């Protein structure tokens, strides 16, 4: 089994209205050193071992569904989980 952690964020070139609002809130809390906030999504997939190439499969899942690549970037980490 694998645990795959997927991170989806708005692309650098795309203004993030939620992130801007959170940044202003942090500034009003006097954390003026915060330069930028980007809000994204975090997903955990538990995937069984199969004949399919895991990297190819996860990449496809991200491109087709988990992220909208018009406005979002994605990254992921794979962890192998040892089952009893």
């Amino acid at each position, binding site marked *: 089994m694998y645990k795959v952690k997927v991170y989806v964020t708005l692309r650098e070139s*795309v203004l993030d*209205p939620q992130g801007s*609002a959170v940044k202003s809130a942090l500034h009003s809390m006097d954390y003026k050193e915060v330069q930028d906030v980007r809000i994204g999504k975090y997903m955990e997939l538990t995937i069984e071992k199969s004949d399919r190439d895991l990297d190819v499969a996860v990449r496809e899942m991200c491109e087709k569904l988990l992220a*909208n690549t*018009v*406005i979002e970037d994605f990254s992921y980490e794979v962890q192998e989980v040892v089952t009893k």
Partner: protein
Amino acid sequence: MKFAVIVFPGSNCDIDMYHAIKDELGEEVEYVWHDETDLSQFDGILLPGGFSYGDYLRSGAIARFSNVMQEVVKAAEAGKPVLGVCNGFQILLEAGLLPGAMKRNENLKFMCRPVNLKVVNNQTAFTSAYEKDEVISIPIAHGEGNYYCDEQTLQTLKENNQIVFTYETNPNGSLVDIAGITNERGNVLGMMPHPERAVDELLGSADGLKLFQSIVKNWRESHVTTA
């Protein structure tokens, strides 16, 4: 002319759309559930607003993989008129039938009120009953209507006159005030404002009716039967 109103779990403007077609426009219309696999009997496809699949992941992201969407793609390829309103527009974007994507409204608020739109292209199958640059009042009701696309796509939209409606006063931060766009061929229209909620003066405006009348008129003209 026979219309299909596609119903997803979470659609909530399907009844308004049905009413607009049946009672105000006077054409045939049926509800079509999202797992349907044949739309061949319909002449026009309507994707209503709402919150399909609870807007989980992203608006329209999951609806785009429902059975009926493959049929909607086929209908679009066959040149049938396909109209997506609000969540319907978001689904068309996710399905790749229209370019670009939606972000949260710039002010992060759900906005629900009538807005003035300009008909910047009246040479489409959806807008031919309007005057060029006519200003019409149509309600919006969305939290994610902040249209975005990259520079190159925007250039293409402009060059092909695919921008059909723009906001007179931008409510949501949409790129170049975009409220509605078509595909390159002009038979798929997506718009955030709700023309089906503006089909009778009792509703505050009847300006949306001409959009549906345009669809029917253009369909009749291309399906002429000898009288």
